[in-house]
């Protein structure tokens, strides 16, 4: 019963330009990214106000903040995330995905971007434990708390915000591009078409994640300011405004590097 639904890029002028760049310059990740940003500009602008994306980011700020509190489990419980002493990191991150799915079950208008936001949050949490804690598989929620605790300083929050936005941006770009890469891209010198296909997507993925480094610069400052002003209670509205600003900056960064 494993049927999959695939699609291709529309045949409008701007999407045709994406295909043209893929065909002519498959190794030029900057030009490819720029073309996608131009073609999907309207939708990407609308994402700045997407409730599921902003909530996912807000949840990240709350989980990170909770890691600094004495009653980690209590704060998480207020967020709808129940943890016990023996809860593993794996189960906790899985429960975060369930929480988002439950909250946005009726939010069908975002289509796949709700899931992409949820995946970005899972990735940020997963990498955090991988970089700062013991092995993901053997770790408890306490290990995750200790790992997240190191990310709750302004500087380190910038790092986890980078992970979140980098993943969301990378998966959004490849969500569009993987419709045509196999058809539009031939073989790069010394590469098979299959390997070229993989490298193009991996190149875009890496470029997006690297470009999101700028989130480090402004996310840390924002986190410090609003955490102090709100006494640790950053609101969803504040998070929403930040996501709008961050997406705008990220789009500009991709454009700037591309020009």
């Amino acid at each position, binding site marked *: *019963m*494993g*049927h*999959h*639904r*695939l*699609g*291709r*890029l*529309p045949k409008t002028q701007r*999407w045709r330009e994406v295909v043209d760049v893929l065909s002519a310059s498959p190794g030029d990740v900057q030009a490819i990214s720029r073309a996608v940003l131009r073609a*999907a500009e309207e*939708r990407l602008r609308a994402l700045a106000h997407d409730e599921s994306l902003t909530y996912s980011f807000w949840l990240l700020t709350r989980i990170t903040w909770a890691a600094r509190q004495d009653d980690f489990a209590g704060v998480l419980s207020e967020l709808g995330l129940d943890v016990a002493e023996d809860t*593993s990191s*794996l*189960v906790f*991150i*899985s*429960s975060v*995905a369930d929480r988002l*799915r*439950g909250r946005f*079950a*009726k939010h*069908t*208008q*975002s*289509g*796949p*971007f*709700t899931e*992409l936001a949820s*995946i970005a949050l899972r*990735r940020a949490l*997963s*990498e955090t434990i*991988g970089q700062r804690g013991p*092995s*993901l*598989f*053997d770790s408890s929620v306490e290990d995750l708390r200790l790992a997240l605790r190191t990310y709750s300083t302004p500087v380190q929050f910038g790092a986890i915000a980078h992970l979140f936005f980098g993943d969301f941006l990378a*998966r959004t770009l490849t*969500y*569009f*591009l*993987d*419709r045509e890469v*196999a*058809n539009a891209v031939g*073989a790069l*010198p*010394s*590469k*098979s*078409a*299959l*390997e070229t*296909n*993989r490298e193009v*997507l991996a190149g875009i993925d890496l470029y997006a994640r690297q470009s999101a480094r700028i989130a480090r610069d402004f996310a840390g400052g924002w986190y410090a300011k609003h955490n102090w002003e709100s006494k640790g209670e950053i609101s969803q509205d504040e998070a929403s405004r930040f996501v709008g600003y961050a997406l705008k900056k990220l789009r500009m960064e991709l454009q700037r590097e591309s020009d």
Partner: protein
Amino acid sequence: MARALFLCDGASKPWEWRDRAWEVEGVIRHHGPKADLNLRVENLSHRVLGTIDARAWDLVRIAAYVYGADQSVRRGGPKDVYGAAWRRTMALSIPVVDPDFWSQEEIRQALQDTLDFVSDDDWEFHFSPGAPEPGQLVLNVDKAELLSRPDSVILFSGGADSLCATIEKAVDEHSRPLLVSHRPTPPVDSRQKTLLAGLREHFAMWAFPQLGFWIHRRGSDAVETSQRSRSFLFASLGSAVASALNLRDVILADNGVVSLNIPFNAQLVGALATRSTHPKFLWLFNKAMQAIFDDPPQLLNPLSNRTRAEALHILRAHGVEALLQESVSCAHARGRPAVQPHCGVCSQCIDRRFASLAAGLEEHDLAECYGLDIFSGSLPEGDPRTLAISYVGLARRILKTPEDDLFDEFPQLYDCILPDDPTPDRTAEALVALLQRHARTVLRVLQDQAIKLAPEIAAGDLAPTSLVGLSVSPVESPNGDFRAAPGFRSVWWQGQQYTFGSKQAQVVEILYQAYLSATPEVGQDYILEAVESSGRRLRDLFKDHPAWKSLIVSGKGKGTFRLNI
């Protein structure tokens, strides 16, 4: 994003839904002359003990209406680049025997959670009083079969995975499974019958009784074919029967890799990649059954930790490899010729082809039974090429990712870690190992096929856009100015592409080898003899070819030629 309301079999429009805006308002009927949904149960072979009670039958009805509605509202289609219409709001007003029971928040929420996850939609239900199904509730009692009473239910689709699970259950575990089938079309029905005949012929220890449910649209084709709710229907049929017979296990078999919802293409987000046997779907479904039945059956997938190739080994282990050719896995099987039931290019066909080759079952799953042999045939642009390249691309991506990072690379895997898993670390390790075994299998099969097709590659006869053709690196000159596809049938030089016939390609290859050996000029006589040409002049072989006197030019020595690179 569609908001659709369906009133089922005369159910009224609930007042709380009257003021809401619906883009689609429809009715679904399985009673009366205007019925557009067929819902019929029949004992196909043997009679079995038991009576489907009103609650179980209500479950089947709900699942059937869901299945009917699912096919009635478009999800945007392949041109919907933003997936704006993929997720729908689906509201169903349904008559049931016991509306008070089904209207309980716990029950309704459990149904919605299960369907939301498997379909990506937002499902809502309203239940009103309805009559029991006259004459369709009894699974005929036959006392003669009391002693051979079934002890489990297997959802038997006619595909390879359910076939393997049936054999394993009956033969290795000495169980007595009752086969429950959803029979959407006559060809599927025919396929299931053929497979059952084979099972009965080879395994005399059990009669493999089968119960079939005819559930399909009537009068018009579906406007939406993704059928994400089909596994809910299938599982509901099995659970209703299991409940009637007081059986515990309901087997919904699919190989583990397909079940995981790992996107092999980046556009496959959420249920755009199937979740029909995802561990979380099974968990949510079982949770719903616990709320519905006092002694609930349990939905299981015995193949969840096996690759498709590993599942197919069951056929080999029991000496029934020949049954594989009677099973059909294709997503586009409808309307295909009986001798070639597989399209070859859908994700199911690609996965099956790799698996049967990996399991050493090629002679029972012949390439001729596929509309296209992906390894040697030219993959058309669009879905076929994207699917085939992405399928191999996923395998490469898995093997290039350190195993500790696979959950970072594929955060979708977290959905496979269930809230009540007592050993999530072991589950995670098993998932990683499963993916790695699958990836290694895929690349080994591709390598084997490349070796098998080596003569065609060398001769330049392999389609460059076949899967093997696409996986072979082109030849390239040291300065990067000249590139040739394997076999030299296609050459790129100074921004232009040249295509050569078989003998012409051999000439170009000889000249290229000479170039690499720093002895670029080759005598005409030698070349003509080497390519077994009956002509006396090389230029005759390249008559009117654009490469003549541009890419292929005269050397300094008399009667010699070289590549102009």
